[in-house]
């Protein structure tokens, strides 16, 4: 088990529990009562910690190395899934995956950022930082969905679009802009879920939709707290402050009306019970798709455009 800094009290309790169990296993002393008590304390401590998380702690949770990623959710949610590759122009990006699947009898197209599950895979997936061909693959699959009338599910989990030489050469900005432009008018439902990190243009590049939900311990903003700290505070040391200032949690985003829904995570975060998390996510995705499908296509697009057109607050000087 990996414990985050703010989970230290939990780690201690788990260590105690291990020791007590060892003693109990020797069979000399009956430790059952102590074990029970410790387990109770673990539950309570976890509840205490998790019911009062700061912005920065949620950012840490969203990056937890054991957190489930897109392909895990796809595997759990779809009985059948065929992964599709390539943007048809340049290559196949590994940081954005996508394909066509069957979710309880309904064919859907699912796209999403994919992070690696171990050191080697993290590199292979470029840490979930997509190149232009990733955004173009996503668009190709969305267009495929449109052609055949399949709803689109987009799972967001990226520390940002990749800022490399080749990404710039191949038009990172154009690829993201094009997606926003095309997703605005896509004639099938688009449901998005932030399942981890929602960093800036790299996130919204596949994140424009009729219904956007955020898992409870995720974040979504224009910049990561670290980069924000380095630019505005001119030091990397103010990430906690930056995280608070950016108001980037699911709760904040929901209160601003920028996302439609917060999806509850199990106590201890999505990684503590990933299968349960996948079940909840699937249920909410299906519900959202069904609600959008009640509308006519033209109404759906009009509502989608009006929703984004209404975001932002301005005033007029007297």
């Amino acid at each position, binding site marked *: 088990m990996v414990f985050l800094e703010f989970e230290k009290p939990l780690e201690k309790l788990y260590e105690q529990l291990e020791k007590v169990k060892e003693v109990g296993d020797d069979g000399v002393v009956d430790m059952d009562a102590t074990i029970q008590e410790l387990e109770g304390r673990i539950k309570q401590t976890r509840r205490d910690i998790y019911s009062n998380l700061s912005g920065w702690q949620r950012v840490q949770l969203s990056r937890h190395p054991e957190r489930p990623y897109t392909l895990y959710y796809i595997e759990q949610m779809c009985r059948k899934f065929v992964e599709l590759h390539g943007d048809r122009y340049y290559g196949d990006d590994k940081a954005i995956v996508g394909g066509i699947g069957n979710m309880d009898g309904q064919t859907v197209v699912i796209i999403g950022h994919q992070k690696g599950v171990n050191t080697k895979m993290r590199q292979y997936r470029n840490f979930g930082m997509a190149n232009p061909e990733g955004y173009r693959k996503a668009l190709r699959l969305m267009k495929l969905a449109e052609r055949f009338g399949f709803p689109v599910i987009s799972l967001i989990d990226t520390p940002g679009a990749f800022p490399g030489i080749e990404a710039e050469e191949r038009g990172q*900005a154009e690829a993201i802009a094009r997606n926003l432009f095309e997703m605005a008018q896509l004639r099938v439902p688009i449901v998005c879920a932030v399942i981890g990190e929602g960093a800036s243009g790299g996130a919204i590049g596949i994140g424009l939709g009729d219904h956007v939900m955020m898992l409870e311990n995720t974040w979504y903003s224009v910049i990561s707290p670290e980069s924000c700290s380095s630019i505005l505070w001119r030091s990397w040391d103010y990430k906690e402050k930056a995280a608070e200032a950016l108001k980037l949690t699911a709760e904040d985003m929901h209160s601003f009306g*920028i996302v439609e829904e917060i999806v509850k995570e199990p106590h201890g975060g999505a990684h503590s019970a990933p299968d349960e998390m996948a079940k909840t996510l699937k249920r909410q995705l299906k519900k959202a798709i069904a609600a959008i499908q009640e509308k006519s296509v033209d109404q759906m697009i009009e509502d989608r455009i009006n929703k984004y057109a209404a975001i*932002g607050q301005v005033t007029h*000087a007297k």
Partner: protein
Amino acid sequence: MGWFKRLKDGIQTATRNKKEAPEGLWYKCPRCSETVTRKELRENVYKCPNCNYHERIGSQEYFDLLFDGNFEEYEADMEAVDVLQFKDLKSYKDRLKAAKKKTGLSDAIRVARGKLNRRPLIVAAMDFGFIGGSMGSVVGEKIAFAIDEARKTRTPLLIISKTGGARMMEAAFSLMQMAKTSVKLSQLAKDGVPYFSLMTDPTTGGVTASYAMLGDINLAEPEALIAFAGPRVVKETIKKELPEGFQTSEFLLEHGFLDFIVDRAELTERLSDLLHLFESAHRPN
């Protein structure tokens, strides 16, 4: 040793280049260090007469250049709101106040309607002087306004970008302006009203990754920095030197992201040609 070298270099600097010029009278080119009067610079459409460096100019200069000073501005009094009560080393409120005082502007973009060589045009021009030309709710809302105006009156739209990207102090709201401007542009496109995007130095970040790259025609001034991630970020990421000319207008043209580069002296003429050619534009059936 080094000392002497440096001293000599100092002496070799031409006297006229070294002289402190009183603000408002002289202009010293940041690239070739040639000094000319402000009047000469203005008469040369704010380009260095010696090396053709395109000085960064603001909305007023572009309106004057394109509309001959005869234009109607929209929503001039629209201002930003500090929704998040954002505070870093300074509060966003203070930053806004300081920017207004420094520039005399209300935010980083202005929208106007006028005529360019007798043909109507709506122009949204960004001001880099206002918090780095950053895109917050006001920029998004004014662009949305310009688009609605263009749709209503079937008038072509020109957006002149000059920006560091999204405005961090408006966090998610600024990010969402990428989506907002793009969905609005999709409506303009559906209506068959042309949109020209002019990228000037610099155009980076969330603006490049939304409306700047979505022109029916993408134009840029020469040697402008145009990027998604700025050169400093790219360099830090790859830990290598960047190739010569990386992320300039010429680089983007070569890689297929611009239709052409336009010298500021020819901007009016080239746009006039486009407006003429697009005059018969209509909503496709």
